Structures are given as C-alpha cells and as structure tokens.
C-alpha cells in the first residue's frame, strides 16, 4: 500500500511533467496503471473544459448568425458549422496540425506591464494550443447547430408576448429568447459535452506529438497495452475513469437544467434524461 502512495507521488502529475521522468517499463503494477492513466485524465479534462467553455459563447454567436436573414452573416456561419460537422474530427486534427507546421516561425511580444510574454506561432504545433483550437472549433460547430435548432423551436407566443411588452433588440434576446433557447437545447448540449470529453482521446493519436511522453489517459493506456501485451487491464481502467467523468457531467448539467426549468410549473419541468434519440452527435 505504501508503495502505491510512492507511485502516486512519482506519477500522479507525470502527464504535466512533474515527478518521475521515466515511465515504468518492467514489472508494471496495477497501481502504476491506475495512477498514470488517472494522471493522463488531466489532459482530457483540460481540453474538454476549455473547449466547452469558449465554445459555449462562440456557439451562441454561430447559432444567431445562422439564423440571421443577412446573407453576409448567415453564409459564413453556415459554412463554418457545415465544415466542422461534416468532416471527421480525426481528419480535422491532421489537417490543422499540418497547416500549423507550415506556418512561418514568428514570435510576437505582448507586454502585460508586469510581464512580457512572447507569443509564438510554434505553439500552434503543440497539443496544448493546436489541439485545443481544433476542439474549440469543433464543439462550437456542434453546439452551434444544437442552439440553432433550439432557437428555431422557441415558441412563437413567447416572441409575441415579448413584442407586446415592448422588449426589443438585446433586451428581448437576453430576457426571452436566450433562456428559452438554452432550456430547449440543454439535453442535447449535455450530450455534446459528454461527447466532447470522449473526443479528447483522439488528440495524441493524430499529428500532435506527446512531448516527453506527456499524454492523455488513452495515450498511457495504449502504452501499457503495448508494454504488457495485455489489453484487459489498461483499457477497462480508462473506461472506469470515463464512466466516472460522464456521471459527474450528467450531475453538473442536471443541476443547471434544474435552474433553467425553475420557472415552469412542476408538472411541465423536464428532468434531464439523456434522450435516446439525442445520444449521437
């Protein structure tokens, strides 16, 4: 047991570069597999959380743009959503990485007053930024389509009441359309969030290299499967971690769902049930 604590301190943060440098090679214990794969989950959570956070706002913009009657707003949003929803994420990673590699190596100094940061185009070829951008665009497109569908499903009476009460422009959107849109979209959006977490497992199988063997959960799982030639231990461990994560997401999104449905009479409130038709992105 004490050796497992030792493993935890050696490999607990290995995926972000702290602790033991060399990965276990021989006599791999169950504890090592659990710890290292768990450490890799840091990357999965990092990618998915940031992509979802930024993607949420961009998706709203895309949905509104796609719903716009102005061709100049409508066409680029449609094209963006189509390109990212219509092609495999796996190919998007490869394509983006190969484009980023071709970029000239430049650095721009940004002065924060207390600290000068050199922003380099080279960062784009690293997973932490390059893959994050691809995931951000991808989830924005999927969520944008979900929000667009919900926007179109906003009951027309709600809009008429808003007009009758003199709501216009941003106020009408903020107070009437947006909350209803979110409420209608929420079950599908929960599903999208779950799939986003699952999609992060693709990152290190594409062009983006895992620098100094700092990879995500499935990177370490496949490392162990290669080393021990036994797939029956590491992959179920990844499965276990992801089931845990999925349950946490459903719990968190369920809380938000309750908040969104608060104003409705109790018999009309929808519980967040992951609808069987919505299962798929």
């Amino acid at each position, binding site marked *: 047991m004490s050796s497992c604590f030792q493993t935890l301190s050696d490999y607990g943060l290995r995926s972000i570069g702290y602790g033991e440098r060399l990965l276990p090679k021989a006599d791999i214990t169950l504890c090592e597999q659990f710890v290292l794969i768990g450490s890799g989950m840091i990357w999965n959570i990092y990618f998915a959380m940031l992509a979802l956070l930024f993607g949420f706002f961009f998706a709203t913009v895309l949905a509104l743009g796609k719903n716009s009657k102005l061709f100049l707003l409508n066409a680029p949003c449609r094209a963006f959503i189509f390109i990212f929803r219509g092609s495999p994420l796996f190919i998007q990673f490869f*394509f983006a990485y190969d484009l980023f590699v071709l970029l000239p190596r430049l650095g721009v100094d940004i002065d924060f007053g207390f600290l000068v940061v050199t922003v380099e185009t080279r960062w784009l070829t690293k997973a932490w930024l390059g893959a994050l951008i691809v995931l951000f665009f991808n989830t924005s497109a999927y969520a944008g389509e979900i929000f667009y569908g919900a926007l179109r499903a906003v009951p027309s009476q709600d809009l008429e009441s808003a007009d009758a009460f003199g709501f216009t422009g941003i106020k009408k959107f903020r107070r009437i359309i947006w909350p209803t849109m979110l409420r209608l979209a929420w079950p599908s959006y929960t599903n999208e969030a779950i799939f986003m977490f699952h999609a992060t497992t693709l990152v290190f199988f594409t062009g983006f290299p895992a620098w100094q063997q700092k990879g995500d959960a499935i990177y370490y799982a496949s490392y162990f499967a290669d080393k021990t030639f036994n797939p029956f231990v590491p992959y179920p461990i990844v499965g276990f971690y992801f089931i845990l994560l999925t349950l946490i997401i459903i719990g968190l999104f369920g809380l938000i769902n309750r908040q969104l449905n608060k104003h409705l009479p109790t018999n009309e409130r929808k519980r967040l049930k992951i609808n069987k038709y919505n299962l798929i992105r």
Partner: protein
Amino acid sequence: MFSYCTDPKTLEGLMWLSCYVTTAKHMSFYYSFFVVMGLLSLAAPLAMAFGFAGATAARSSLKIVRAFGKGYLAMIRGIPDIVFFLFIPIALDQAFEYLRHKVLCSDVTEAVRQGNDFVVCAAAKLPLNTASEWVHDIYGFSLALLAFGFVFGAFAGNVLSGAMGAVPKAQIETGEAYGFSSTQIFKRILIPQMWIYALPGLSNLWMILIKATPLLFLLGIEDIVYWAKELGGIKTGVYEYPHPDWRAWYFGVLMIFYLSLTYLSQSVLDKLSTRLSKGQATMAGKEV
C-alpha cells in the same frame, strides 16, 4: 503509367503532375477509398444486426438477458469509442489465439501469459506464420470490422430501443386483446411501426459512421489516412518525385471527400426537418 513518365526528373508542370498522381503508390491511395466504402457498406448492416440484438435483449423478459442488453447499450454512453476500437481487435485476437491454443496444442502445459508475453504455439497463431500477405490483410480488416459493428451496434441499439419504446402502448394492447402471442406482437406490430421513430436516429448514425471511418488508421490498416501521411510527407531528391511537405494538401483532399459524403445525407435530413416543422407554432413553422 503514361509512356512519357519513364524519367520524371525531366518533366515539368502538368506533365509532371499527371505522372505524379498516377504512380503505383497513388493507385494504392485511390484503392484505399474503396476500402473505406467497403467498410461503410459492411459495417452498417453488421451494426444494425448488433443493435437489433441489443435492443431486443434489453426488452427481454429474462432478467439476465435484459441486464446484458441494457449494459451493452449503456456502455457506449460512458466510454469513448476509441477505447473500444483499440481494445476489441487486440482482445478478440488474443481470445481467438487462446482458444485455438487450448484446442490445437492441448499437450503444451506452459502458461499462455508469461509476464509481459502472450505465448501460443505456432499452430494456434492467427493468421498462421506461413499465410500469405492477403490473409493477414483480410484478418486485420475483419477484426476492425467487428470492432465497428460492436461499437455502432451499441449506438444503433440505443436508437432502436428508443424507437421500440415510442410505439404507442395502445397498439401493443390491441394486439394482446386480439390474442396475438408475444412473438406475433413483436413481429407484426412493434417492428413495422418502430421504423418511423427510428429514422431520424438512424440517419444520424449513418453520418457518424461515415465520420468514424478514418479511425481504421488506428487499427493499423493502410487506409486513406495512412496513404495521405505517407504520400504527403517531404520527399527528398532520392525519390523519383521530390516535393516539400504536402500533407496539408492531402488531408485537404480527405476533408473534401468526407464533406461531400456527408453533404448528401445532410441535404436529405434538412428537407425532412423542414417538412416536419411545417404548420408547427414555432419560429421555423411561422416562416414556412
């Protein structure tokens, strides 16, 4: 391919390009598009079969069968599909070899798992060491196909079980009132009526099946991703057709290929959803 291609170093412009895109390796690249289409056309019915079995099992009156079916349908929601794509082929491979080892080499007493090695006797190897190249290819492809069938079967099972649940209860009860047996109700009432509810989910499933095909690359199959990487990489002067890093171009071609594949499905779906929102009291309905 063309007669003037014998010495590519002397060629220029379009002549060079026409020779470049018809090399033997490029032919393999084009051929791999058919591999993808083959996978699509085989994986779709296989997934439907798995899904149908799963959905039926999840409705079974036997508790064990029901738990098994529900577990199968539920697992895909929690675990990323890539885990299955990596796990299933190697797990199946080891399972087959283990079984063959037990049957064919029953006289060998040593353990199959020795530390980090998985040792089976030569006769139990799959495919046999003596087998020719194409047997290895077919075997690898079949394992990949089974992985696709299994994963997408779980997706399809969810759609079908949702559709079976959506068939109005009154219909089933009417069947019972007319004295239909449970098999008859299943075959004559439930199945014919569920398709209309399953249609949106299944068309969606078709779209993600298309978008999952490049994962063949992860299974070690020489698919379009493999060839795009191979052909696009920097070719120095030692090669017949030297060129800089063209991978972005090759993956651009793959993007266009997949976009046009999904575009057809998308346009059909859009038409369907416009028809369904006609006359509805929603923003979309008002505009029709």
